[in-house]
């Protein structure tokens, strides 16, 4: 039983998250143990949302990655706040507009990849410049406050756990089911393992990848809306830190970078680990340089530990 559990690549990210948390509260003498976890769940949810999208994209095969996630977060946040204009009655329109904009980004991304045959890494990077420029010219750096219900949804907690985390948990379970039970989900895995074999087996490779890029953009859109509710306003640099975070959570979480193998629980462990790691180093009072070095080393450590078990 334990041996079986240890073979799961996601165990390591959770183990690392717990170890880091214990080290932090050992340093503070137990002070703030619960509050640190609450904060971790609040902030990790945003990383989890985009991490799930990135995981799906990476799973569709080598070379597939979505670098436009930060720009899409910013665009959807700006569109949502501007359309809602602090008016509760316009919340639904704002959400639809923001998700619509995000969907367009996804469609555009795959258009570049498929029709113009640009490698995904270049296509999504260049589209992110266009998307960010669109957000800048549409928003002009404006920080409009979210309507009160949206802000409250993003902030409400039950027993110290934000309700947003429960919503994202439901989303994660749904996505795990999609991956293992539906034709689309299994196609994603099959295409990622060998796209030619999947094509010969009669799977629609293009449609699978297209849907995946749209899904990733859509999740980035959801993240943008929630994030602007949580931090009470959209800002032009709100998505910036999610580029590395989205990829790192996927890799640390045990999803295969070569594609074909996804790992939903690992995203949770990795997102919590990444947040708690920064918290720990901040609490220890480590300087920025040491913090970056240690972050790098620990990420490598977790990947090596998890990767060793992967080669079965």
């Amino acid at each position, binding site marked *: 039983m334990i041996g079986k559990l240890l073979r799961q690549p996601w165990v390591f990210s959770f183990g690392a998250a717990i170890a880091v948390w214990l080290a932090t509260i050992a340093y503070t003498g137990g*002070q703030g143990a619960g*509050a640190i976890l609450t904060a971790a769940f609040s902030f990790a949810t945003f990383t989890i949302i985009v991490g799930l999208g990135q995981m799906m994209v990476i799973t569709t095969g080598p070379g597939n990655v979505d670098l436009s996630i930060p720009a899409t977060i910013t665009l959807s946040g700006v569109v949502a706040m501007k359309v809602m204009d602090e008016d509760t009655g316009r919340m639904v329109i704002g959400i639809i507009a923001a998700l619509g904009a995000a969907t367009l980004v996804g469609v555009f991304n795959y258009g570049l990849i498929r029709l113009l045959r640009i490698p995904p890494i270049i296509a999504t990077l260049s589209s992110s410049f266009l998307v960010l420029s669109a957000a800048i010219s549409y928003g002009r750096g404006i920080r409009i406050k979210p309507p009160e219900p949206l802000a409250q949804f993003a902030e409400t907690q039950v027993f110290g756990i934000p309700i947003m985390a429960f919503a994202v948990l439901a989303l994660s379970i749904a996505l795990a089911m999609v991956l293992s039970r539906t034709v689309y989900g299994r196609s994603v895995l099959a295409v990622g393992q060998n796209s030619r074999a999947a094509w010969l087996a009669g799977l629609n490779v293009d449609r699978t990848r297209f849907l995946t890029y749209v899904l990733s953009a859509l999740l980035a859109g959801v993240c943008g809306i929630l994030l602007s509710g949580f931090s*009470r306003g959209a800002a032009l640099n709100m998505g910036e830190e999610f580029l590395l975070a989205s990829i790192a959570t996927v890799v640390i979480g045990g999803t295969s970078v070569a594609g074909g193998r996804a790992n939903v629980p690992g995203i949770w462990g990795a997102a919590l680990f990444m947040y708690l790691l920064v918290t720990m180093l901040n609490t220890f009072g480590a300087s920025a340089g040491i913090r970056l070095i240690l972050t790098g080393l620990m990420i490598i450590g977790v990947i090596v530990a998890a990767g060793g078990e992967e080669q079965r």
Partner: protein
Amino acid sequence: MLKKTLACTIALSALLATGVAMADTKDKKIALSNNYAGNSWRQAMLKSWDKVTKPAVEAGIVAAADPFTTSENQVTEQAAQIQNLILQGYNAIVVNAASPDALNGVIKQACDAGIIVVSFDGIVTEPCAWRIAVDFEKMGASEVEYLAKKMPEGGNLLEIRGLAGVFVDDAISKGINETAAKNAQFKIVGSVHGDWAQEVAQKAVAGILPSLPEIKAVVTQGGDGYGAAQAFAAAGRPTPTIIMGNRQDELQWWKEQKDKNGYETMSVSIAPGVSTLAFWVAQMILDGKEVPKDLTVPFLRIDQDTLEANLATTEKGGVANVEYTADDAAKVVAGK
């Protein structure tokens, strides 16, 4: 009749006189090389540039004043951009640099090509360029000095720093820490990097807050005060005195607190309109005026009694700003 003619002649000669003074730069072209546009401060900076340089171009003071921004905050990209500007024949380049020393090579190329280079905000160390710098250390020190006056009994401080590895962050932090060391009643019990962004600051503060004792005040670098306030509220802790950084959302929050419970703080940052000062300085140098290589601009400070006036003139989502006129620039150059 005679009087009228006389008046006309005087007016005409006055016009001619100014015309002559301007004539030296009327066919000169100035370019702005900017390394980043992705936050409200930079947006305000570009807007100020447009607002001041467009009328200047229309009035024939200079032939062109074109802004150029690189998409990624990268030294290599900005170096290539400046090389292009040299080839395009600009007479002066006003630059907000991605790095104080990594662009020195290309800046030297520009100087050798006879181009005037004026750096501001993100200044360059190449000796042939002019520098319009803010005394960031003094800015950091002013925050602690304000707190020392406001709360003589002292207490614990939380420091929010900017982007690690940028010299501005080091300079402000140095000013804060040195002044805090001089005022022994203050103790900096925690330090996090907020990257001058509300979301990042909120996240970092929320993470470290549970492990900290009571915080009396938060010293910041601008663009992070509102996020810090959110983090304190979310953790259910009493709101400390948070030094603000002139962003509209920060000032708005301060105003709400002030109306509610008389909350007191101060706000300090560098005005984005410093780009317009750099423009006028470049124009003056092109005009053949003697300008020292190192200039210092005052930072823009907002206090309890000037809050409303500044909030009223700051647009939603923007940064409190001042734009400079040619006269202001002349005063800065004269060291006044």
